[in-house]
């Protein structure tokens, strides 16, 4: 299926880049004319995915993070976040609410939020190879006519 529009970004796994990453995705997704809540859901999910790559995928080194965003017909926004970090041994366990290897500073709710806030959510990971998460948000059609304008 061909996308109507797409972009990708690539950046270093510095925590100072979290704000940039979520702002960039939100600015791109904004052209589907989402509601404020839909746009905030996307921004929140991206923040979770990027934070995971920064702290879990590259715990001790500076790595590279990729995000691709594609807009499809019928107001479907697909977001892919990819790292080449340590990977996840047991994805099912990692996705459990409250599960975290991050200690007191983490809530273990990242995956749960991505899953709840987005329409579809999938995780692909291989120990030692890295992790890719793919999520889709359906944008409600407005009476005034949504779509790319």
């Amino acid at each position, binding site marked *: 299926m061909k996308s109507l529009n797409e972009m990708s970004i690539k950046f270093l796994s510095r925590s100072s880049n979290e704000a940039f990453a979520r702002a960039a995705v939100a600015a791109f997704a904004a052209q589907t004319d989402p509601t404020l809540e839909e746009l905030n859901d996307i921004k929140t999910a991206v923040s979770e995915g990027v934070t995971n790559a920064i702290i879990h995928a590259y715990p001790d080194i500076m790595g590279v993070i990729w995000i691709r965003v594609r807009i499809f017909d019928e107001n479907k926004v697909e977001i892919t976040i990819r790292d080449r970090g340590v990977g996840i041994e047991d994805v099912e366990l990692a996705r459990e609410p409250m599960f975290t290897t991050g200690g*007191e500073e*983490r809530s273990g709710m990242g995956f*749960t939020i991505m899953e709840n806030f987005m329409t579809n959510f999938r995780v692909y990971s291989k120990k030692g190879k890295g992790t890719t998460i793919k999520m889709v948000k359906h944008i409600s059609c407005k009476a005034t006519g949504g779509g790319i304008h």
Partner: protein
Amino acid sequence: MPISHRKIEEGIVVEYSGELGHHEAKETMRYLENIIDLYAPRRLIFDLSKLTFMDSSGIAVVMCGYRNMRDIGASFFLKDVPPQPRKVLSAAGVDRIVRFTEGRVHNDEIAK
């Protein structure tokens, strides 16, 4: 730092403004802990009216403030939480543990 505090009759108000993600979380937790150590207030009101974005990193910050206050037998409140952070906190069930308040903080309200 987009965080500040002030004393009021009812306790201490800590106000956070801007976005709160993992990048800002550690410093914010430390700030809350320091305030609690320093003043041991009877009530800490975490004013989030100017919080423009929060992800799950903020859950740990809120729970850190809540636990530290509980440990000294004092109360912790979240004040004026905007919709986006409220949705994140609700997803984690924090709204069933921590007390939320709106508008001006009155002695009688938070004494409930």
